[in-house]
């Protein structure tokens, strides 16, 4: 807000209340309600207004209260924001923040992982940090970027993950993956909560030497980092919390098959959540989650 005096924040309950997850707490008091704006319940109109602000030289950030509600603004994102630069050269200088993901027993409409709806849309950038430092660096990078950027933040990680964050502003470049751990047995290529599932798995299975790649940026993808990881192990599991069919894992697996075939010692495996809505009851949700099947997939790969 200090670095970009033209930056306007908009969203439901984000001003005095500080947002459903308190991400904007205190900002209205510091920067005023002209710049930190509560909105009516109208996702489409706010995204349209964000585009209008951009035409007049403003930047804006819209907070979806839950990523699930982005459906009500889908058209503005995929048709107006994503295409206006291509169509007639105008900026859509808009960041959309989307609290996403499940694992907290919140049911079908407060738990979804819907990033793949947007990674198929040319004109957008999609990022998905897994830790506090990346969240800061990617958010700053998103604000500095003149394109529409979708910023997915996992709700379950808000409180369960902590880490050092440099005080000074810094950018994590959009389009660069992070090698979390270098290994030689198998590659796990993942993002978001999948990073933490894999770290836990690694702790429980010190005998398996896992090369863990956190994509961080889903559009564009860091193909160089993906290839490097494949070349270290020859065996790849693509893991995500989103449902399996047509998920981002399909794209990554297809790319590896197409471009790294000569590096592979096993078929590229995907592990995603079940192709169902996200169930409410916690035992059902655990069955739904990719996490409950990732060990099996890793075992399968290790057998090659």
């Amino acid at each position: 807000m200090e670095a970009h005096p033209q930056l306007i924040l908009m969203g439901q309950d984000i001003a005095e209340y500080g947002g459903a997850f308190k991400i904007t707490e205190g900002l209205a008091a510091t920067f005023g309600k002209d710049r930190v704006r509560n909105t009516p319940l109208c996702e489409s109109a706010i995204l349209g207004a964000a585009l209008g602000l951009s035409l007049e030289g403003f930047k804006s950030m819209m907070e979806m209260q839950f990523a699930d509600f982005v459906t009500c603004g889908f058209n503005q994102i995929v048709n107006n924001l994503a295409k206006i630069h291509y169509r007639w050269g105008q900026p859509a200088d808009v960041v959309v923040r989307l609290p996403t993901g499940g694992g907290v027993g919140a049911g079908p409409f407060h738990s979804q992982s819907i990033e793949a709806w947007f990674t198929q849309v040319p004109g957008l950038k999609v990022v998905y940090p897994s830790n506090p430092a990346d969240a800061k660096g990617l958010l700053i990078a998103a604000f500095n970027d003149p394109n529409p950027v979708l910023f997915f933040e996992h709700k379950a990680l808000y409180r369960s993950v902590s880490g050092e964050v440099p005080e000074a502003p810094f950018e994590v470049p959009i389009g660069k993956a992070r090698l979390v751990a270098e290994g030689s047995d198998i590659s796990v290529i993942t993002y978001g909560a999948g990073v933490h599932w894999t770290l836990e798995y690694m702790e429980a299975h010190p005998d398996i030497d896992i090369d863990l790649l956190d994509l961080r940026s889903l559009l564009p993808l860091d193909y160089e980092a993906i290839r490097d990881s494949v070349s270290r192990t020859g065996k790849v599991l693509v893991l995500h919390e989103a449902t399996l069919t047509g998920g981002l894992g399909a794209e990554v697996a297809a790319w590896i098959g197409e471009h790294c075939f000569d590096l592979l010692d096993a078929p590229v495996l995907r592990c995603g959540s079940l192709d169902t809505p996200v169930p409410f009851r916690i035992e059902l949700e655990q069955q739904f989650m990719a996490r409950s099947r990732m060990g099996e997939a890793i075992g399968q790969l290790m057998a090659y």
Partner: protein
Amino acid sequence: MYFDRKELTDEALVQAYRALLLPRMIEEKMLVLLRQGKISKWFSGIGQEAISVGATLALDPEEWIMPLHRNLGVFTTRDMPLYKLFRQWEGQPEGYSHGRERSFHFGSREHHICGMISHLGPQMAVAAGTALAHLLKGERRVSLAFCGDGGTSEGDFHEALNLAAVWDLPVIFVIENNGYGLSTPVNEQYRCEYLSDRAKGYGMEGVTIDGNNILTVMDTIRGVKEYCLREQKPYLVECMTFRMRGHEEASGTKYVPPALFQEWETKDPVDTFEHYLLGEGVLDRGAVDRIREGYKEYIDSELKSAAGGRYARCPGSRRVEGCIRTGAGTPRGADRPLPA
């Protein structure tokens, strides 16, 4: 049709007539080009020009307008070069969208026109955004968004009007009620008597006017603009008009009762205004003929210039990538060239 010139000088009346006639004559030319196969599609605004032209004349050139596909009069009244418009419609690389977009799906920052996408509701909220920008910058400007009778059924209509009302934004929402959304008549579109009645539900003012009377449109939008700036509020204007041709030229008009065409032909915005000016002695027949002849030559010559573009005959010569913006920051002022 009753024309009330109020304080308008003869010169202002002639300016309005010229602005009204130009899109009509361009469209008549486009229909010929369509029949000759030189353009692929045309969405006609014939019979509705008084709304586009009157509204644009009532605003300042720096005020944003969000037009739709029958608003040629917005583009011509903002003095966009006609040869470049022709290049746009022909899909030439030197058109406004470099061949990437069809017909009126483009805009021009220089002219403060933000073009539509095909969905007939999203642009209304964009107008709320530009109005918010002016408000935050302390600039006294309105933004104006067009919508059809069909578009009022979209959720975006509701969202945009409500947002503009809640945030006290000076936006003029103009409904062009032309009787049909493709083949759907208004009695299958909504149940209220006047669409402007909906304004009350949003806590704003609304009015229904004769959209075929250019002086009524100009006077209304001028007054509404003053109100919006004085009160810092939005306003809903419903302009009654009629679509004199098909949804687009290929879709025909079989579903429209012929009596409606006969009725609205007598209310043609160009003919009635021309008749009024002749009757008032503001123009004589010779002057009208000279204006028309001048436009005919202008249109033909601009069409020739359009065909002379460097890339006119090799539309495959430029790459189509480039949906991601490079470099930081937001440009202001002149249009930036699209990436090659």
